[in-house]
């Protein structure tokens, strides 16, 4: 199925909201309000009990709509959903988000039966369906927003696309990203995925120019969808990074182990193999997931494995050396020509061996001179700047210079800062200038590793 069809979910010109209501605290009200607030297209509330809701003309039934809506959002009790979907099909509607729960997830026969009806209707009328039992779509660019979680802050417009198997986690993450000012393009939670699933959405976001980094929360793919996932992910990862958090890592008890291999092939180990084969980056924890998202948003590809550390704190330099080495990075011994140059520009008590230690009496000028030398060299693949702002001479003026350097040299430059308000302020400034900042050497090394592994994967497969 082509992803062109999915455009109607994200850029519709008209939307019908089945189950819109003026009643406070209801899902149908929250969704209608979302659309009124941000959506620029035509909005049609549908509810048999009203002629008008929140100042909009309300339609008593779907048949009465003045046009076939590009998108329908359905938030009515489960037993009425099949007939609503059928009427939408008759009307010519091609995309529906079914928010309502009460289907297969209930574990009841009735629920499964209703869900099967939806599958048949969607096939018969050729309607693409997201849901049921989902929170749907939050599109930061078009204003499509079916996230009925009213207390969730909306993140700023940006470039992270998020596909989530969990609606509650999608909500929490959007809220978190709003708080941390990470920009989002589109977020989708697909619930029972009777039609549109992870693979379709991955393909869509892969082609979406508002999405630069794709994040996925996956519990499990649909049966037999693994191969198409790998195929799609392989194409997408050459264009943009795909980061997956796989939940349900502990081994599945259910699989009858018919052999040695079967006993060892836990669900998770098979998923990991698939991620690796498709160039997908696996984040193993929540912290890692967000660290990796940030580094990918800000940093260019890393073309090799050689890292230089510039620090004003010897101890943190050693911590970083450990963390980076553990993650397979090379911290080259400063070559003789660079050593000469560094000795010329630095006072004699500074350490010119990598990690290069500017020591506690450093000022911004020292950073600028050293970073200038490093950024220009072909044998430097990434630079880690440790800027503990507690030292008296550091004003932070080197940060803007750093941003300029990063653009010119087109290599990753990341930073580490630890401390209280003064450190937060440094971190903020760094971030504003496109330098990814970490508080922990281990998390920095971990995120940089994801960037390196992805970069090497892309470089290798671009050549192939």
């Amino acid at each position: 199925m082509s992803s062109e069809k999915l455009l109607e979910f994200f850029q519709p010109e008209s939307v019908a909201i089945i189950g819109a209501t003026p009643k406070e605290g209801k899902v149908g009200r929250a969704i209608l309000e979302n659309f009124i607030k941000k959506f620029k297209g035509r909005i049609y509330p549908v509810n048999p009990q009203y002629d008008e809701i929140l100042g909009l003309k309300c339609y008593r039934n779907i048949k009465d709509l003045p046009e076939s809506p590009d998108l329908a959002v359905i938030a009515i009790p489960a037993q009425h959903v099949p007939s609503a979907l059928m009427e939408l099909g008759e009307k010519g509607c091609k995309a529906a988000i079914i928010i309502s729960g009460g289907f297969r997830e209930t574990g009841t026969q009735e629920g499964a039966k209703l869900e099967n009806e939806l599958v048949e209707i969607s096939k018969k009328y050729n309607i693409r369906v997201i849901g049921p039992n989902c929170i749907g779509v939050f599109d930061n660019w078009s204003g499509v927003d079916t996230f009925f979680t009213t207390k969730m802050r909306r993140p700023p417009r940006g470039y992270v696309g998020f596909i989530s198997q969990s609606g509650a986690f999608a909500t929490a993450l959007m809220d978190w990203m709003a708080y941390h000012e990470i920009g989002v393009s589109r977020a989708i939670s697909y619930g029972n995925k009777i039609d549109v699933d992870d693979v379709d959405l991955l393909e869509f976001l892969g082609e979406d120019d508002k999405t630069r980094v794709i994040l996925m929360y996956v519990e499990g793919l649909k049966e037999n969808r693994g191969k198409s996932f790998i195929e799609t992910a392989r194409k997408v990862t050459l264009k943009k990074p795909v980061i997956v958090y796989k939940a349900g890592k502990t081994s599945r008890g259910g699989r009858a182990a018919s052999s040695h291999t079967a006993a060892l092939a836990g669900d998770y180990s098979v998923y990991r193999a698939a991620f690796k084969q498709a160039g997908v980056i696996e984040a193993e924890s929540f912290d890692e997931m967000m660290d990796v998202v940030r580094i990918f948003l800000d940093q260019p590809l890393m073309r090799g494995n050689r890292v230089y550390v510039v620090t004003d704190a010897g101890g943190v330099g050693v911590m970083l050396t450990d963390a980076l080495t553990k993650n397979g990075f090379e911290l080259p011994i400063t070559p003789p020509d660079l050593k000469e140059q560094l000795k010329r520009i630095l006072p004699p008590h500074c350490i010119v061996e990598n990690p290069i230690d500017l020591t506690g009496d450093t000022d911004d000028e020292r950073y600028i001179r050293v970073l200038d030398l490093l950024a220009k060299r072909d044998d430097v693949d990434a630079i880690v700047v440790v800027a503990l702002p507690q030292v008296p001479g550091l004003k932070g003026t080197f940060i803007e210079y750093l941003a300029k350097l990063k653009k010119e040299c087109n290599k990753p430059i990341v930073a580490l800062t630890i401390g209280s308000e003064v450190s937060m302020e440094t971190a903020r400034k760094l971030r504003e200038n496109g330098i990814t900042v970490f508080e922990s050497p281990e998390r920095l090394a971990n995120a940089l590793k994801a960037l390196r592994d992805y970069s090497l994967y892309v470089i290798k497969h671009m050549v192939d």
Partner: protein
Amino acid sequence: MMPRKIIENALNENRTKLLEHEAFEIAKYYGIPTPNAVLVKTPEEAYDLADKIGYPLVLKIVSPDITHKSDVGGVKLGLKNKEEVSEAVKEMLKTVQSRAPNARIAGIIMYKMAPPGLEVIVGGVRDDVFGAVVMFGLGGIFVEVLRDVSFRISPVSLDDALEMINEIKSATILNGFRGQPPADKHAIADIIVKTSKLLMENQEIESIDLNPVIAYSQGALAVDVRIVLKRGNK
């Protein structure tokens, strides 16, 4: 016999585990190196074929009803000539018959004992989501205790297979250890690729274990092959 025919036979007889000689034959069809093996039914047959197989020679009873072969006297190792072989076959048939009187006996498989080398495991299993999946690991405690194995989704290329081999934590052991020569990674990778193909082309197979595969400095040999079919196939 073609793999298709072997699988159909087993399913027709309601067996989900293939017998040793059947599994060997399928592996061989895909070019997976296995010991030269024959199935014999009588001491006379064994006597006539033993020289061709070579020594030291191994005998194992083949029966869909016997899982623990040695418990019923169904395993003989280290036989050195055809006289010993025919005598051992005679004895084995007798012992097995008395200890497992109701077991169906397909015959006795005999093959040349493989010289020692580095024991590794190659396996394959069918996953609900990803389909055919292959596995590699080192034998013994590396798999049993440390679960130090790697996986790939089929199809796998030779490069993928080599990557799998180098990916396990204890991979350095393959490079030679305590005076052992390095194991032939290419030969192992070749077996992984062929196992993947075997699994992809025979959808009825649920899982396959080549355990152990003995790796040498040149070549590798799958000395035990187990193939399990999916239940409810027809």
